[in-house]
């Protein structure tokens, strides 16, 4: 994977902020060089010669120098304040209250709930439910301004994908928003940037930016209910899932499982990773996660169950084929 830095902006918002950052860095570098130069010059030129115990020149001040010290930074700061306002209004224009968000992100300890309200404007509204809900892997279309709504289910979290621009807190009790206009398809990574508890480190973000047609296909396929289990082992897994409290916290659309405390698992097999990027999605990882969650992601809300090895294998097999 290549370097995903703020210096490689991939959205309209990130480009604007990066331009401002670079302009400021040039000014800051000049000021720093001036200070370094002055310090080196003064300390070299006015260093005490050996044996010289005399006093320095009795200079107590100079009004012109002081005016320069105040005036020059004031002008520079005024200009940068103007640039700040310009960039701010470009990046975060006000939201028309009737505009429905394209995506709603809800922060949980320690994962992201991602939902897409589908209204009359989206393709095939007739055969889709109102919302597509998924977790952690955030699919977004490129090339058009998206309005993101940010909420929190518990503590304060923060959405930040460096290449896509500005971060924004997810504050319980508030609804925040972000504008996002992604330039190119690709995988962008980010992370929760407000300390949110024991597993703050593993609350990472994976954005999959897609061409609008690809995104529409993805959205449609994710609007479907879960695949019914294909083999006997998966059927056993489904039964265990529904009867052994898993369903109390997780939703699998098309089955009675409709818990909302944990991530939606309807198409968990399609997501490249589980636990916000900690493990890649496969049967083996799912099994060890169900077996000893508190060793893999300490402090997460997934309880340690006492399943037999066979039951774990069945549940993991069932979940893995939910594509």
């Amino acid at each position, binding site marked *: 994977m*290549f*370097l995903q830095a*703020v210096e490689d902006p991939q959205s309209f918002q*990130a480009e*604007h*902020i*990066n331009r*401002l*950052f670079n302009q*400021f860095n040039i000014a800051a570098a000049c*000021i*720093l060089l001036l*200070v370094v130069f002055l*310090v080196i010059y*003064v300390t070299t030129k*006015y260093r*005490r010669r050996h044996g*010289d115990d005399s*006093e*320095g020149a*009795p*200079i*107590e001040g*100079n009004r012109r120098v*002081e005016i320069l*010290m105040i005036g020059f930074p*004031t002008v520079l*700061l005024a200009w*940068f*304040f103007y640039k*700040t*306002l310009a960039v*701010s209004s470009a*990046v*975060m224009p006000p939201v028309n209250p009737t505009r429905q968000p394209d995506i709603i992100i809800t922060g949980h*300890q320690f994962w992201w709930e991602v939902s897409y309200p589908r209204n009359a404007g989206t393709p095939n509204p007739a055969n889709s439910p109102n919302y597509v809900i998924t977790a952690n892997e955030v699919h977004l279309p490129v090339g058009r301004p998206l309005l993101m709504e940010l909420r929190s289910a*518990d*503590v*304060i979290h923060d959405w*930040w994908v*460096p290449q896509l*621009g500005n*971060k*924004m*807190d997810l504050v*319980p009790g*508030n609804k925040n928003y972000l504008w996002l206009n992604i330039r190119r398809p690709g995988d962008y*990574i*980010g*992370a*929760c*940037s*407000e*300390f949110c508890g*024991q597993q*703050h*480190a593993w609350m990472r973000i994976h954005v999959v930016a897609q061409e609008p047609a690809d995104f529409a296909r993805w959205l449609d396929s994710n609007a479907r209910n879960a695949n019914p289990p294909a083999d006997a082992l998966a059927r056993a897994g489904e039964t265990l899932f529904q009867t052994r409290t898993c369903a109390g916290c997780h939703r699998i659309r098309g089955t009675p499982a409709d818990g909302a405390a944990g991530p939606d698992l309807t198409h968990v097999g399609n997501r490249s990773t589980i636990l916000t*990027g900690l493990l890649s999605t496969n049967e083996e990882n799912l099994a060890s996660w169900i077996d000893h969650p508190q060793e893999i992601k*300490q*402090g997460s809300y997934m309880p340690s169950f006492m399943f037999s090895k066979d039951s774990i294998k069945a549940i993991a097999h069932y979940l893995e084929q939910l594509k």
Partner: protein
Amino acid sequence: MGTTIKIPEPSAPFPGLGVENAQGLLQWISAVDHKIIGVMYLLTSVVFLVLGGVLALLMRVQLAIPMNHFLHPEVFNQFFTMHGTTMIFFVAMPAIFGFAVYFIPLMIGANEMAFPRLNAFGFWLTFFGGLLLYFSFVAGGAPDAGWFNYAPLNERNYSYNHGIDYFAIGLLVSGIGSVATSINIIVTVLHYRVPGMALNKLPLFVWMIFVNSFLLLAAFPALNAALAELLLDRELNAHFFNTAGGGSALLWQHLFWIFGHPEVYIVILPAFAIYSEVFQVFSRKPIFGYAFVAASSVAIALLSFGVWAHHMFAVGLGDTVNSFFGASSMLIAIPTGVKIFNWIATMWGGKIHFSVAMLFAISFLIEFTIGGLTGVAFAMFPIDWQLTDTYYVVAHMHYVFIGGVISGMLAGLFYWFPKITGKYLDEKAGKWFFWLFVIGFNGTFLIQHVLGMIGMPRRVYTYPNLPWYGVLNFTSTFFAFVMGFSILLLVFIMRRAMRHGTPAGPDPWNAYTLEWATRTSPPPLKNFEDLPAVTSRRAWWDMKQQAVNPHPQTKNDDPI
């Protein structure tokens, strides 16, 4: 029954630590002398510096390689919380008060603080506040929600051990001590100056600590209110900050930062105060632009109450609020820049002595400029939206706190150690310490700017193996140990100086201000017998020029 121990009057300005005959240790505990209390503040600061530093090194070990399992995540979170809290409240604050209560009476020609018992009370509250905070480690777990302890993560339902209760009570206790000492400093400066020392002739050190004390008086009530509310929430199920019960998570942030941002200036202004003395003495010149340096401190103090929400640019306060706090935060760069350039101008035309104190002051000019410039970047709030809560901000604040505050305290230590103990800190070993410290510090934190720019958030106990993350973090850890080693060296240098240091005499730097006018180093229990009226900002220098030294220095007056 039992024997009664007579509480001893202090018999020496620097009592020993023996317990026989109830002398020594008891003299320290019962002391109300401002010098003994000052030394106890400074020792407290050193002890907590070592504790906070060890926590930092343990965190750096955990972060040295990707996906490390050296520390449990909960332990890591407790460590960074304790590291920040310790460094701000129990390293920076005691160091500031130590220098302030030791030197303010001396610099204004007074024999004591205005309220000596209040002074002792303030120290012991700070000391026991720190002990209460650390007691949490054995009482079920340390606080784990970060030093600014955001709601609702600080509530019982998200942090169920008692760490945060100890955090709240420890900071309340030490906060009351800080307020008491500030009042004491203000009254002392207003009331106990030697005749002739008008406010425009105050040494700049005293000026800035004086301004700082008002800042502290106005800032701490907000913290105390927030802590009281938090305790009500946690212990009595109130819901000031609990959104589920109708409280507000952002209320905590407002209250904390109304205290917290002035607090940043509360710890930096005293460092500025020390630099202002060090630059003069070791450039052999009076300060350039006295009025501007003093007035810029007042400007910083006033502005600091109007900038708190720049910590909250990413919480969604809206354009109007962001613009106001962006502008006010940018404004604060102006008085700070004025200071930097005035200090450079103070060296201009001087005869610069490269003592260790002066080296720290010079390195500060560059390091603090870096921290200041990245600070202006954060005032430009779209940039803040990218870089806040990343390692860029970790780098920024350590450039301000270590490059600014800690360097200032170290400059003060090397400058005043001969007065406090009567012995020089070895200058040659001190220069080794200086270079190790500066290299260790810059090596640790300069590259953290890059880590922030490539997406590493702060306060993560580990990170995936992304390009450059491993090597940059490992480098940072390596240099953190260089810095840690330099602090060990400093403790060794101090210990050796106390035992076999070169006697310094009463005025080793041929200095300008009245603390060097005492007959001996350390100063006698009664600082001054008699002082002539002051006529300029460099009172002691004038006395030496006019040979009216009230306490002639004779060869017999060897330091203790």
